[in-house]
Structures are given as structure tokens and as C-alpha cells.
């Protein structure tokens, strides 16, 4: 099978879905020029009416997409940096996420929000480096965070075809990754996690770009005879609770590896879910390796101290393994 980069996989999903359904439009800043590549060629293929460059008006174009969806279109709204969602928070959280219920089911809002370069890519400091998914999960958005090119394409196709608002996070640190991607359009279903590596000693629940880091740590620890099971939820909401609990039961020891803030972050939800549903199968307290609860500092050593690291993960794995349960 041919290999594509993550951004190329996203581009192929955009191309194939927009060709399939003329109701799809894509809206955002600098979409037509395709500066990173994921929107390249859309203008030529689908024309300026469906491929729309907006002013820098995040709240305005999010509300625009809501109205367009209420009138029958299926908008894709692209944020050029994930933390730009904060600018549009009322229109996202108080409008799009709530209107289907508040209007008593009179409208569907088939909107896909793609949040590009999510998380830190280094050197961009506190306002361009967040993984804002805890806020969006709290608001009730369906959220996917694919860790590979294959899943990027399949989950983007599923997100676009879903009749509800779906947030798609494209982690900064996987965008250049290459991987095998089927040529035809296909869906990776929402709400289904995947075992990325089978192991017997410790289960690591990893999100986004941290899945790759967790696999590397697992390789390293395998040389010491530690067998790490790596599970990727892929969809953060709906969460594959059965898959999560099955992954936890496999080893009885769980480390959550997540690059959102510790307090009320995604790892907290995973941890609480395990406490409620898999307590009897756990042989050690769940450990979280997350981002620290501060804005990402600029200077490299400070940044390194704040984001979750493979060293921290390896230490946490050893610690849960050492716990006599």
C-alpha cells in the first residue's frame, strides 16, 4: 500500500468527501492557498463558492457555519491553530454545541471543525501550543484525535459524514508522519479505540502524538523485559469505555499519557472511568503523565519540563509495576 503523510491523508479525505457531497463547504483562514498542504488543490477542484477564505473572524465564521448548516450545508471549519477556538468560544460552546438540543431536535448541525497543529511543536509559547480538547469535551462536542495518517483519513471521513458537530484535532507533532493509507474513502468509526501494541505488564492509554512516543517507550522497556500494552482511544467522545476497560484489565496497571492540562484534563476522565468501571481489576493506582497546569513556557528547557515526556512515562510505568497489588 502507498504511504502518505498525515496532511496528505487529510487532503485526500477533504478531496474525496467534497467530490462525493456537493453540500460540503470548507471555511477558514488561508484555506485556498493551502499553506501546509491539507487544503491544497481544493480551490481548483471545487471552486471559490465551496472553498472559502475568511477574514480573521473566528467567532464570525463559526457562527456562519452554524447558520449554513441550519440552512442545509455541511460545513468544514478549519482553525489554523487549535487554540484559536478560544476566540470563537461562545459560537462553539454556547451555540453550535447546544442548539440541536435547545431547539428540540429541529436542526442537525453536520459541522466538522478541524483544529490544525494542536499541541506544541516547540518554540511558539503559551498561546499557540494548547490541546484544547478538554474544554470542547466538556461542552459536549464529539472529538477525534487521530495518531496516524490512516486514522486521520478514516476519522476525518467519519467526522464529515456524522450529522453532529465533530472536532478533529490534528496534532502538530504527527503532521509530517508517513504511513500506509488506503486510496479509497473509508471510515474509521467514532467511539472505537485501538490496541496499538499488545503487552502484558502495564497498559498505557495514549492520545494523539503521544501514541507514537508511547510505542517508542514500549520498545525501549521491552529490552528490559517489561511488556507494555498501548491503547489509543482515537475518539475522545464518544469514548470507547469497553475498549478502555478491556485494555486496563489486560494488565491491571494503567498509565495515562496525555498532553492536556492535569486538572480536569482528559486523563482525569479516563482515570475516573477506570475507578468506576474497572476498580476490581486494577492491581495498582492509576498514574497520569500529563502537561503541567501552566501556559506552555517559551524557553526550550522550560517547555520540556512542562509537556509530558517519554522519561516521565517510563518512570510512571516502572512505578506502577513496582506497586505490589
Amino acid at each position, binding site marked *: 500500500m502507498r504511504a502518505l503523510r498525515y496532511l496528505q491523508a487529510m487532503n485526500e479525505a477533504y478531496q474525496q468527501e467534497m467530490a462525493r457531497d456537493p453540500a460540503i463547504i470548507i471555511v477558514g483562514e488561508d484555506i485556498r492557498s493551502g499553506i501546509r498542504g491539507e487544503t491544497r488543490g481544493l480551490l481548483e477542484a471545487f471552486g471559490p463558492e465551496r472553498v472559502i477564505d475568511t477574514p480573521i473572524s473566528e467567532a464570525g465564521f463559526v457562527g456562519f457555519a452554524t447558520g449554513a448548516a441550519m440552512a442545509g450545508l455541511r460545513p468544514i471549519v478549519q482553525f489554523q491553530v487549535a487554540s484559536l477556538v478560544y476566540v470563537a468560544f461562545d459560537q462553539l460552546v454556547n451555540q453550535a454545541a447546544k442548539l440541536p438540543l435547545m431547539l428540540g431536535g429541529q436542526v442537525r448541525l453536520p459541522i466538522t471543525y478541524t483544529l490544525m497543529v494542536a499541541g506544541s511543536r516547540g518554540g511558539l509559547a503559551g498561546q499557540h501550543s494548547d490541546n484544547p480538547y478538554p474544554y470542547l469535551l466538556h461542552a459536549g462536542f464529539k472529538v477525534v484525535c487521530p495518531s496516524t495518517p490512516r486514522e486521520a483519513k478514516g476519522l476525518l471521513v467519519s467526522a464529515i459524514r456524522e450529522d453532529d458537530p465533530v472536532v478533529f484535532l490534528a496534532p502538530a507533532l504527527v503532521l509530517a508522519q508517513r504511513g500506509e493509507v488506503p486510496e479509497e474513502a473509508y471510515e474509521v468509526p467514532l467511539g472505537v479505540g485501538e490496541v496499538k501494541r499488545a503487552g502484558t505488564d502495564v497498559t498505557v492509554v495514549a492520545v494523539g502524538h503521544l501514541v507514537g512516543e508511547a510505542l517508542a517507550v514500549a520498545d525501549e522497556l521491552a529490552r528490559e523485559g517489561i511488556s507494555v500494552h498501548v491503547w489509543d482511544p482515537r475518539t475522545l467522545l464518544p*469514548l470507547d469505555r469497553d475498549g478502555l476497560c478491556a485494555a486496563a484489565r489486560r494488565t491491571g496497571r494503567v498509565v495515562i499519557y496525555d498532553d492536556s492540562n492535569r486538572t480536569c484534563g482528559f486523563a482525569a476522565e479516563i482515570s475516573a472511568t477506570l475507578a468506576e468501571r474497572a476498580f476490581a481489576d486494577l492491581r495498582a493506582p492509576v498514574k497520569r503523565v500529563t502537561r503541567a497546569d501552566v501556559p506552555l513556557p517559551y524557553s526550550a528547557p522550560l517547555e520540556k519540563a512542562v509537556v509530558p515526556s517519554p522519561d516521565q512515562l517510563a518512570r510512571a510505568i516502572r512505578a506502577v509495576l513496582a506497586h505490589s497489588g
Partner: protein
Amino acid sequence: MAVGLPRTLAEGLYRRMRLIRRFEEEVAALVDANEIAGVCHEYVGQEAVAAGVCAALRVDDVITSTHRGHGHVIAKGGEVRYMLAELLGRVTGYNRGRGGSMHIADISLGIFGANGIVGAGAPMACGAAYRFKLAGDRRVAVSFFGDGAVNQGVLHEALNLAAIWDLPVVFVCENNLYAITTALRAVSKLEPHQRAAAYGMPGLAVDGMDVEAVYLAAAAAVERARQGGGPTFVECKTYRYVGHYTAERFMKLSYRSEDEIAAWRQRDAIETWGRRLIEAGLWNGEDLAAADQAVEQEIAQAIAFARASPWPESASALDYMYSRTYAGTPAWGAE
């Protein structure tokens, strides 16, 4: 004074305005009686704006509304019995009891919803209008908002989007002079319609207490939008006779004077229009009384309908969150 409008239109404007006024008066009583939960933002005094603007619209045109939205819903053809059922929290209400006063919507009538956040509906009107423009079906979106919204960022983003893309939107600013208790003159150097120039959009002001003037201005702006001429900003100078919301009656606030309120009441749009229908020979006193009586009957029936309607089932509280649900999503608060 003569009436320059066709007879059915002229009569319809009176009926709609009267229905809005009486609806709001009954709603206030139902809030006081605790039959309606929370508060309502009454449209009393501003009826000519909703009635005049919506009379210029087709049923398949779209409006976005505000927290003070009952008048817009009625004017766009909303049925008062489903509105009252919604206000009473009943499952027969427009939003099946999920929205209440600030969120009434009827998508089939192009009512994209009242909205609890000032200015929030404006970009949605642009999105709907974009769809209409792509489809080439000559539909128009109207965004209602108040003077308070003219200092809200998202409104300005929406004005700009409509202008740069020549969208068929009419922005209707209901300037009732106060954002809750804050006078417009204290928070804006310009009058609302003067802001339109910044976006390269025509902006005009009309007497919002004169339903004919509102209708004529709206009809021109709507027709311009329908023909591909782009958006227009129409400021309607109006006034709410009552407080910001039903609870204000008990607050003894002094941000405006009794004299000021009385002066605006002197120019009441409904009474004025009733007189003009009679002066123009379209109606006599009996016709007017009959129209008023029909409104009373409609409202009485609507209240009876709402009161007799069932409450929603508790087990349905998570319904409509998603088109497609998954195991455990959405989640209840307790398992």
C-alpha cells in the same frame, strides 16, 4: 391620513402587532403566577418593528432573533399556542420544552431561533444567506438585534462577512435606547446605522413606531437583497415600555424617567395604526373591536392548549443532544 399599503397587508399589520402586545401582557401575568419559569423579555412597545419587517418576508425567508424574541416569532408566523406551550415547559412547545422564552424556533417557518446571547444570531444569518446565494433561490435572511449588540464583536464580524460576500442579509437594529439599563448614548459615539458605513453597506434609520415606515424600509432592503444587491443595515428607532425583563417591575430602577416612557407611549404604534385604518376608511370601530376580540380568543385558546399539554418525560432529558448517540454518550450525571 391615508394608508399607502394594500388592504390585507394593512389589516394584517394591525392584527400581528395587537397579537404580540396581548401575548406579552399575558406572558407577564403567567410569569407572575409562576406558570412560566424564570423571566421573559417583553417586546411591548416595539411591535411595529417585528410586524413591519416580517411582513416584507416570504415564508421561506429566514430570521435570527434575540432574547426579546416573542414578537419576531409571532410576526414571522409562529403560532402562539406552541409558543405558550414552550414557555410553560410543555412537550408540545416549539422546542419540546428544551428552550423556553429565549430560544423559541420554528425552522419550518424560517425562524432560526431567538438567542440568549447578544449578537449571536448575526453570523448565523450570514451562513443561511450564503446557502441561499449558492442555491440562487432568492431567499433572504434577516438578523434582528438590539442597540446593545452594536458593541458586540461578533455582530461586526457578521456585518463584514455579509458585505464582502454580498450576502442577502438585512440587519435590523431595534434601537430601544437601552442595553438593559445602559443608555446607548453612553456607550456609542455614533447612532447604530452609522456603523454600517464602516463596512461599505447602506445604513438607514426609520421611525420604529410607524409600522408603515418600517415595512417600506424593510421591503426595499429585502428586495435589494433578493435581487443580489447585498446587505442593508436598517435601524428602527423604538422603545420598550416595560423593563428589560419581567423581574424589573419589582426593582424600582431609575435609569429612565416616567416622562420619557409616557412620551413614547403617546406614539404607540398599535393605537396609531388602528386610528389610521379607521381614518383611511378601511375599518370602522366595530372592525377594530372584532380584530381585538379575535386576538383575545386566540390567546385564550393558546393558554388553554398550553396548560392542557403534557410535560416532557424525565427520561427524555438527554434527547436531541446528538443525531447519533453512542453507548454512554451523552452521559447522565449518575449511573
